[in-house]
């Protein structure tokens, strides 16, 4: 905070080759406005279909969910975004953006207002926490379609010893963790702070788990999806995934879903239907599996 409140800059990266310039499309549309008179005032779903493109906002550097891989947006959320567009019969315009200080910044910049410097709002944002307090606080957006349950877990390197031991047992050995994340606070404060000197802070939880592959770290706490995908990407490295729960972990997990602008409900409902179909026919689990992650239904979708 501090400077941040005045000067914090959140960057967003245009990924060449993937994005379609929405403004040039709109200009093109103006020229053909006579031919397609309905588009200007159409409801959001019809507008997306008329434009022939679904603009989807995804977090940058959020492996295994969404990240820039050599100019192409890769990841579970990127695959879901493309599947959504395909089901609507339109192209996917996948936009990576850098996270703000909290989720409110992201919803404002990506879903309901757009960026101050010209970033156009997206039709839908994925990977949004599906949580009651957030819904109450954010009345400019609609939260829909919880599609996965996030949880925290732990893993050890091949030579990391007993992965089921209390984390304090790893004192004196390198422990990687994503900076300023819940796992970071968990490990910093664990057992009175005995591990604080052993923590190696890295930018993402995926990096933290991947560091177990070459032995540069022996233990990590990260999200289950980050750990599973790192294990899959380094299948021969012998990374061991902890089976038991983490003592005193402050978060029991959370659901993730999608967010659309408050006045885009008909688009949101249609996307929710598509996601439900994907879950029902196994396409969702297959997308997750292709990234080494086991799909788990959202808790709120089970009741």
């Amino acid at each position, binding site marked *: 905070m*501090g400077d941040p409140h005045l000067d914090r*800059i959140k960057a*967003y*990266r245009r990924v060449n080759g993937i994005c379609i310039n929405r403004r040039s499309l709109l200009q093109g549309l103006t020229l053909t406005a006579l031919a397609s008179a309905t588009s200007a005032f159409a409801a959001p779903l019809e507008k997306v279909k008329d434009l022939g493109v679904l603009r989807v906002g995804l977090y940058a550097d959020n492996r295994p969910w969404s990240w820039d891989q050599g100019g192409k947006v890769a990841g579970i959320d990127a695959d879901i975004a493309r599947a959504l567009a395909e089901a609507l019969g339109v192209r996917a315009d996948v936009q990576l953006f850098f996270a703000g200080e909290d989720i409110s910044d992201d919803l404002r910049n990506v879903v309901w207002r757009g*960026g101050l410097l010209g970033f156009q709002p997206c039709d839908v944002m994925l*990977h949004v926490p599906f949580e009651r307090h*957030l819904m109450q606080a954010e009345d400019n957006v609609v939260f829909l379609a919880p599609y996965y349950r996030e949880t925290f877990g732990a893993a050890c390197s091949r030579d990391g010893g007993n992965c089921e031991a209390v984390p304090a047992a790893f004192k004196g050995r390198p422990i990687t963790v994503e900076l300023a994340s*819940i796992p970071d606070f968990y490990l910093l*404060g664990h057992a009175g702070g005995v591990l604080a000197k052993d923590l190696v*802070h890295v930018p993402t939880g995926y990096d933290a788990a991947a560091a177990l592959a070459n032995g540069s770290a022996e233990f990590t706490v990260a999200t289950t999806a980050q750990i599973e995908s790192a294990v899959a990407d380094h299948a021969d490295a012998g990374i061991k995934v902890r089976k038991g729960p983490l003592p005193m972990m402050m978060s029991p997990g959370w659901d993730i879903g999608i967010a659309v602008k408050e006045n885009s409900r008909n688009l949101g409902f249609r996307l929710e239907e598509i996601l439900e179909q994907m879950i029902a026919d196994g396409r969702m689990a297959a997308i997750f599996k292709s990234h080494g992650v086991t799909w788990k239904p959202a808790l709120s979708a089970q009741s």
Partner: protein
Amino acid sequence: MKRRFTTFMAGLAAATSLAAAPALAGGPTSADIVNDAATPGDVISYGMGPQQQRFSSLDKINTANVKGLVPVFAASLGGEKQRGQESQPLVYDGTIYVTGSYSRLFAFDARTGEKKWEYNARLPDGIMPCCDVVNRGAAIHGDKVIFATLDAHLIALDRHTGKVIWNKKLADYQAGYSATAAPLIVKDMVITGNSGGEFGIIGEVSARNVETGELIWTRPTIEGHMGTLAGKPSTMTGKLNASWTGDLWKTGGGATWLGGTYDPETNLLYFGTGNPGPWNSNLRPGDNLYTASTLAIDPDTGEIKWHYQTTPHDGWDFDGVNEFIPFDATIKGKPMKLGAKADRNGYFYVLDRTNGKLVGASKFVMQTTWADGINLKTGRPNFIPANRPGAPNGAEKGTTVFASPSFLGGKNWMPMAYSKDTGLFYVPSNDWGMDIWNEPIAYKKGAAYLGAGFTIKPIAEDHIGALRAMDPVTGKIVWEYKNKAPLWGGVLATRGNLVFTGTPEGYLKAFDAKTGTELWKFQTGSGVVGSPVTWEQDGEQYVAVMSGWGGAVPLWGGEVAKTFKEISQGGSLWVFKLPK
């Protein structure tokens, strides 16, 4: 077509100004800039001199006649980019140079208000500032006018034409860096701080060759990081792990986002540093040097000569970036070289500027809940431990505490002024507090993380803002002017026994420097959050200020927002003088 026209106009402006003032074609030198406070015919540095006392020796406008002050012209920055205008104008060679929101720089004719040229930095559309898109001012040297941009570039323009001479990347905006402060020119170097709030950034001061923009030295502000000089590693800042646990120093914060001052007598740069990360202080034991501090740096080498930390182990977001203003005074019969800083944390510090030793510290706001005074022997605050936000306990949020000042500070970015005549500092301050707590679960990048919650609220019925005259020798508040909305603009003091400052309500106001009596006000049409300047031109004294509401304050809702909900945005340069 439009571009070609602009180029033509710029060329015309260049030709005109060269013809009109050939003697000034060389432009200000570093010596001129050091001497800025003594040359009232121009304003060629941020703060009206590198000490940034914001004091003018002009007295043609004074307490007796200020009520007659009238506008000469108002010049709109135009466009749709009407957000916070926190800039301070520069005046040189019949031209007013002023930066605007969205990293723009304008040159106006100082006599007519006609625009000579405009430069719009091309910003990546994906930069998403949390708060506002401000800029605080430019620097001028030789044929160049230099300013920093939101995407963390430093750009030198030809001051006659607005054409780019050099453009250097200060830092990577994609890694969360930005730049909004006015650069400082010292010994033919451009000295800048850095800004950015992304977790993981490290504060730094750097010096570049003013002619080329090439890097000369860098000085990181966090212990354990290595500085550079002439392209080679120089010395380490502080001592590795002396006040940080584990590898947290690598991502410790301490941004120098407000720039710095320079004192030619001691040959020292003074830069303030931001607060440490991560937010929850319970997880980073130690003083976390050199966050929330003032650093004295040798401009020739980039070496730290001394430091003074205003908020050790910060837990309230009291960063220490505020300007440290050199001044001289007699303390207990002894003439001393001093410096003063009104900190975010609500205390006004007076230090020996040769060695950083604390001379005095006193409250300049209504209330400081986090500490009960500053210990003059140790230089450390007398913390009130119960008023530090508690650590979360498992899934329960930490203890909520009421903290005053709020994290926006007893004083935020807006610069104070020092009058050589009255010996007083004029501090634009705010009286507000916050409920603050550490949250076990919040969300960032779609994931759960540990965050902080806060609610800002007023603590007085009749005001939030207060312009206060502080006696640096006694630490006493001599007078105060209370303002309903938070004050967010800079202050100017003059030999005419006047103090000028703006208000969010849209007024530029003038006060009697000795008594605080309000003598004049003018409604500019939008909130004033810029810093006024004054200069002499054609035998008359002029005053200029930017109008345009914005900055960080409008982001906060609740009770505070009620004080400014009817204020509209703007973007204009206003210039005043007395009628002939």
